[in-house]
C-alpha cells in the first residue's frame, strides 16, 4: 500500500520521528535512530556545538540520509526561539525547525502564545516550521493558519512516559487538521504510539521512552513496529465497538415510516468515512494530505 508521509512536500519513509536527547552516548543514539527506521530526527540546538563539528559533536552522530530537524528547546519566548532558529539555520543549513518555546523548565509545557508568535515570525522568514504545542484544537488551527508545516500536540508532559493523556483533544485535532498531526512528547511505551496512530495521528515523535529504555535499540525497533501497526489499523478502519445495548437484537425503530407512505427521508450511506475533513483522508482511503 502506498501510504507516504509528506511534510512540506517532502516524502518521509517512516511515521516515527525520533529525538536525540537523554541517550547514554551519541553512539547509542545513532544506533537507536538506525534501528527506528526514522527519516527525521530532532536535535536540540542548545546541544549542538559547531566548534566541535567533526570532533564528537552530536550532529556527527546523526546517520547520513536522515533528515535533520533542529529544535529550539530552551527558548523561553518568541524572540529567543527566532534567534535560536536563525543560528540553527546558519549553522546546520536546513530551514526546517521544530519550534519549542518552553518557559517552564519543570513541565517543559509549550507556551501557546509565544509559540504562535514565533511561528508567524519564522514562517515569514522562510522557515519550514513544525511547532511543538499544547493539545488544543484552536491553537492547532491557528498554527496551521500561520503557515506551519505540521502541528505537534503533546501526548503528555515531555519525558513523563505517561502515554496519550490528551487523546480526546488529539481526536478533535486530527479531525480538523489540514496539515499532518504529529503527536509529540509523553508516549512511554510502543502501545502508546500505536494508540496515537490508531486515532489518526499522521506520525509520532519519541525520545525519552527510547533513550532511557534498558535496551534503547530494541525499544526503537519496537516503536517503529507499533507506529506502523497503529497506522495500518487506522487505515484499515476499525469496526464499530459493540456496547451492551447494540449487542442486543432490538426491534427496528423506523419501521413505522413504511406505513406512512411517500419518501422516507432516509440518507443513503453516511458512515464514518464521510466525516473526514477536506485535505485529510478518512480511515481506509490510503492517501494523505
Amino acid at each position, binding site marked *: 500500500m502506498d501510504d507516504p508521509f509528506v511534510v512540506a512536500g517532502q516524502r518521509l519513509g517512516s511515521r516515527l520521528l525520533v529525538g536525540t*536527547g*537523554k*541517550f547514554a*552516548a551519541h553512539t547509542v543514539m545513532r544506533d537507536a535512530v538506525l534501528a527506528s527506521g526514522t527519516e527525521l530526527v530532532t536535535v536540540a540546538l542548545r546541544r549542538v556545538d559547531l566548534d566541535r563539528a567533526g570532533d564528537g559533536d552530536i550532529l556527527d552522530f546523526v546517520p547520513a540520509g536522515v533528515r535533520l530537524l533542529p529544535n529550539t528547546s*530552551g527558548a523561553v519566548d518568541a524572540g529567543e526561539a527566532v534567534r535560536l532558529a536563525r543560528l540553527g539555520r546558519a549553522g546546520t543549513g536546513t530551514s526546517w525547525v521544530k519550534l519549542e518555546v518552553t518557559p517552564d523548565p519543570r513541565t517543559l509545557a509549550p507556551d501557546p502564545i509565544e509559540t504562535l508568535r514565533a511561528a508567524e515570525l519564522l514562517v515569514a522568514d522562510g522557515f519550514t516550521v513544525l511547532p511543538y504545542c499544547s493539545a488544543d484544537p484552536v491553537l492547532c488551527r491557528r498554527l496551521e493558519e500561520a503557515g506551519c508545516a505540521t502541528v505537534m500536540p503533546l501526548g503528555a508532559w515531555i519525558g513523563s512516559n505517561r502515554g496519550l493523556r490528551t487523546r480526546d483533544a488529539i481526536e478533535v485535532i486530527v479531525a480538523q487538521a489540514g496539515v499532518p498531526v504529529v503527536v509529540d512528547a509523553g508516549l512511554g511505551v510502543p502501545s502508546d504510539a500505536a494508540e496515537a496512530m490508531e486515532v489518526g495521528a499522521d506520525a509520532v515523535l519519541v525520545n525519552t521512552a527510547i533513550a*532511557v529504555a534498558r535496551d534503547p535499540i530494541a525499544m526503537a525497533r519496537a516503536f517503529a513496529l507499533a507506529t506502523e501497526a497503529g497506522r495500518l489499523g487506522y487505515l484499515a478502519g476499525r469496526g464499530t465497538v459493540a456496547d451492551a445495548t447494540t449487542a442486543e437484537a432490538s426491534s427496528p425503530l423506523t419501521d413505522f415510516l413504511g406505513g406512512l407512505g411517500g419518501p422516507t427521508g432516509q440518507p443513503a450511506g453516511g458512515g464514518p468515512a464521510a466525516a473526514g475533513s477536506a485535505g485529510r483522508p478518512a480511515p481506509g482511503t490510503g492517501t494523505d494530505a
Partner: protein
Amino acid sequence: MAAPRGRFARHLDTLDVPGLSARAYTDADVTAALGREHRDLADLAALLAPAATARLEELAQAARATTLRRFGRAVRLFAPVYLSNACLSSCTYCGFAKDLPIARRTLTVDEVAAEAGLLTGRGFRHLLLVAGEHRVEVSQDYLVSVVERLRPHVPSLSIETQTWSDDTYARLVAAGLEGVVHYQETYDRDRYAATHTAGWKRDFDRRLNSTELAGAAGVRRLGVGALLGLAEDWRADVLSVAAHAAFLVKSFWRTEVTVALPRIRPSASGYQPLVPVSDAEYVQALAALRLFEPEAGIVLSTREPAALRDGLVRIAVTQMSAGASTEPGGYSAPGTATEQFAISDERSAVEVAAMLEAAGYEPVWKDAFPLVDLSR
C-alpha cells in the same frame, strides 16, 4: 543595619524545620514517604531520618529511576573560574577569609579570558565565575565586563560571588549572565552568626533574600545550597534547602532551580566540621532530595572524592564540575594564589568524561545557547 526578613525567611519561619527534623520517624513513615507520588517536607524529613538509613538502597533505586526519567542518561559538566580570592568577609570555614595571611590575587578581565580560553579548549561550555567578597576588586562593573568579554565564547555563564542588589542582577542578565549561585551555607541563624563573623556576608537575611532579587531580575538558573557540617543538625539544613528550592520554583516559574549540598573541605581556615556527615548519610541526603524535587538539577563539585562522585551520578546528580582549580589563575599558572579549599576529585575533565561514558552516561559539555544577540 541588618536587612529585614524577606519572603522566604518568613515562609521558613512557618515550616518548623527543627521540629520536622527532630521528630522520631519509624520504618512505616519511610515506607509511606517512599510510596507517595508527590512528597511534602514531612516525607523528606522521614527519608532523611536515621530510620531511612537502613533503606538506603531502596532510596537510591527510587532516586535513580526519578533522575533517569527527568534527565535521562546525561550529566552536564561545568568548570569553576576563580576570579579573585580577595575578600572583605570573615567566614570561619573559608580559605579566603579576610584576615587569613594568604597569597591574594584578582584576575584582570584579560586574565579571566585566558583562563576561560583554556577551559573552552578542554571542551567546557558552562563556566561558573567564583570570587571572594570584595566589592572594590570584584565590583559590579568588573563582573559585567567579564560577562561581556566571555559571552561570545561561552554559552553558559553563572556567578558565585557576594550577593548584589536587584539593579546589579539586572545588569548582569542584560550582559548575558545565565545563572546565580548563592548558598546560604546554613539556615540555622545561630550557627550562621557564629561562622560568619564579619563583613557583607554576616547579614543572614540579606543573603537569604538575594536569590529572590536575582530571580526577579530574570536570572534563568538559581542555585541554592547548604554547607553540611556547619550546623549540628545537617538534616534541618537539607530540609531548609529543599524548602528554599520549592519556594523559588513556585515564585519564579520560568527559572530553573539547582541545589547542592557541599561538605566542608580542608582549607587555610583550618576549620573542622561541627558534625561529620558520613558518606552513607550524604548519599541518603542527595537521594532524598531527588525524591522531594524530581525536577531540580543537583550539583556536585570536586570537593567530593572520585568514587563517591561516580556513585552519585547513578543516583541523583545531574551536573558536576571536573578538572577544577579553586585558585584565581589556577588553570593558566597554578600556584600563584592560594586556593579556596583542597579539591578531592583531582581527575581531569577528560577522565571524568570517560568515567561517565563507562557508567552509561553522556557527558554533556554544551546545553545552552547565547542569551544575548551577539550579532547586534
